């Protein structure tokens, strides 16, 4: 962010923005995709204060990034149906390399690294097979594709590795798409979203859960692991707008999949759409964003109760930060712990990936 803009914002609000002291100020803290003012797309590395450290042009719209701490690397995936991923080395060189999924696969926009950093996992659409897969790429060998796991469902979107280090959780959105009809939803009447747990070592299915028939049009798309290993997910409703199904739910092995009943109060305000889900570092709070509703909501994990909601235009990207959350918006705003730290002349895209 340029200084004059920061000064302008500070002046408008008659408030000063204290700079965070410390040696970490210029360390990469977050990665996000964006659209620039000139219409081009980029993958951007941000400091903890939301300052742009690095901006790399993408040849199409990006979505979310997989982060590796050591050696520090970000892999930005193209938005679905994605045909590229950009590897950005964060060792100071800023070196980038791109790779693509096989011709019969399209990236779904999300992925993660194995704990040892050697393997990258990416959610993908096997569009002829009409099934979801997780592609495995060898990060030590030019991101050569070395295999794939089934996601045991259709239209996989976000996937993450749980804190046990061996379980992949994947949100199968349930929606059939094909590159011949980009982004068109081809199976709304029969869509069957699910959450699948997969063994990271061999791709075996460890468990799978679905919402009942009543809610089969709630596409489960994003999630985060909260305290006590519980997954919190956010959905996007494909049914009639006059319905108000709950859009936030939880999953754990013992109690299975449960909707957070209080969340249906927010469904209309969220305009039937959750964009991102993030859990605080202590696991006690979950934040969901709704760009269509212009809303950010925080839940108390232990009590399963809504803590607060805040109106924020086009809010979507969310990631945990040391004492709360960082949130980005399509209007270029970067917020941290509820404070607006910056506004860039870009539209921040759906997700914010954090190093913490």
């Amino acid at each position: 962010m340029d200084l004059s803009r920061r000064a302008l914002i500070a002046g408008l609000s008659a408030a000063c923005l204290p700079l965070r002291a410390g040696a970490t100020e210029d360390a990469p803290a977050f990665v996000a995709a964006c659209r620039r003012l000139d219409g081009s797309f980029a993958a951007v590395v941000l400091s903890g204060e939301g300052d742009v450290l690095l901006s790399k042009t993408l040849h199409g719209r990006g979505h979310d990034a997989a982060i590796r701490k050591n050696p520090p690397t970000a892999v930005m995936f193209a938005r679905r149906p994605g045909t590229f991923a950009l590897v950005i080395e964060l060792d100071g060189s800023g070196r980038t390399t791109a790779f693509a999924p096989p011709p019969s696969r399209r990236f779904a926009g999300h992925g993660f690294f194995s704990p040892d950093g050697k393997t990258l996992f990416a959610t993908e659409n096997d569009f002829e097979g009409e099934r979801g897969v997780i592609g495995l790429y060898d990060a030590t060998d030019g991101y050569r594709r070395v295999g794939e796991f089934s996601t045991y469902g259709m239209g996989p979107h976000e996937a993450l590795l749980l804190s046990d280090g061996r379980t992949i959780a994947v949100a199968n959105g349930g929606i059939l798409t094909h590159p011949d009809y980009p982004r068109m939803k081809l199976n709304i009447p029969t869509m069957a979203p699910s959450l699948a747990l997969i063994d990271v070592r061999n791709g075996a299915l460890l468990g799978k859960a679905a919402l009942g028939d009543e809610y089969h049009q709630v596409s489960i798309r994003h999630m985060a692991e909260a305290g006590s290993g519980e997954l919190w997910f956010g959905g996007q409703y494909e049914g009639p707008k006059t319905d108000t199904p709950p859009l936030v739910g939880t999953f754990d092995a013992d109690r299975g999949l449960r909707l957070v009943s209080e969340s249906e109060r927010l469904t209309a305000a969220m305009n039937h759409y959750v964009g991102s889900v993030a859990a605080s570092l202590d696991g006690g709070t979950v934040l969901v964003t709704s760009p269509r509703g212009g809303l950010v909501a925080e839940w108390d994990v232990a009590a399963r109760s809504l803590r607060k909601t805040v109106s924020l235009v086009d809010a979507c990207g969310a990631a945990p930060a040391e004492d709360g959350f960082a949130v980005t918006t399509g209007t270029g705003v970067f917020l941290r712990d509820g404070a607006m730290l910056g506004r860039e002349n870009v539209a921040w895209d759906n997700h914010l990936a954090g190093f913490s």
Partner: protein
Amino acid sequence: MRQTIAAAAVLLLVGGSAHGQEPSFAPVVDSLIKTVIVPAHTEFTAAADAQAGRMAELCKTPSEATLAAARTGFIDLVAKFAKVEPYRFGPARVENRIERLYFWPDRRGRGLRQVQGLLAKEDPSATDVATLTGKSVAVQGLPAFEFILFGTGSDALAGTEAPYRCNYGAAVAEAISAVAQAMEGEWRGSFAEVMRTAGSDNQAYRSDREALQDILQGAAEQLEFVKGFKLEAAVRGSPDEARPKRAPFWRANATLPAIIANLEATQSLLTEDLAGLLGEDEGLVNSADFELNQAIRALSSLTEGDRTFADLVADPDAHKRLSYAQLPVGAAHALFAQRIPGRLGMVAGFNALDGD
């Protein structure tokens, strides 16, 4: 002191109200429902009723004449459906009505195979509307009906040896009629009320701006659909590359009438009331009207004579016109999707666009 999210939100709103006094969208929503949307549904219901009558007549006294009447009636029904097709939200989303009417695209011919299966097995449950509607959405709508009346073996409907096919067709006609009636009823009643009572207490629309936005977005999506999926995917780059069977309703040779009716449907939304809302930018409405006229004229010039869609894409001159027609459709799309809503302060956020 740090800024709060609320301060940030206020800041973001500054750009949104730059056009001065807030126009009232409610009267325009109301007039579009009354003068455009409801009449289109009334005509669709009437066409469906009439077609159910023709099918009853065909089954009672099969002949070349009654078959010809049913086939002509089908083409009229398709054109009337194409006039309500842009309204894919609201009543069309309830009970998957839009897919019940029009399960398309069907890339793999799944629906077709199911229809052929019913015809081969003569499953009696498909000849009763009560049990037919419990089956797959693909066997109870217009694409199924098209195959029954125009597909392989359909000429037998003119004689007495195809009673099953005829009765199945009659049940499909009744099913379509029931859906048409239900949609019309809701556009006259409950859903119109939802749109008219937009506001903070409304589960579907928090403002009348949002209600109008849904109508304009429906038109924009329809134009995208026409350009990309109905024309471009079938016409492609040259006569050699063309894939006419990817176009909708090619068996009935109703491809162009259906597409033209789609364009006319979006054109019918360009009312004086809408222009009035745009103030000094009312010319945008004229521009959209002009572009749609260009497209309609180019396509209409190809409907004279009885050439099939396959004949047309194979003919270099006609292929050129089919390619050309996509340009003004694209221009009209840009007006409906961006410029008109932009002027009305309803630009969807970067992250609020089609889901991810």
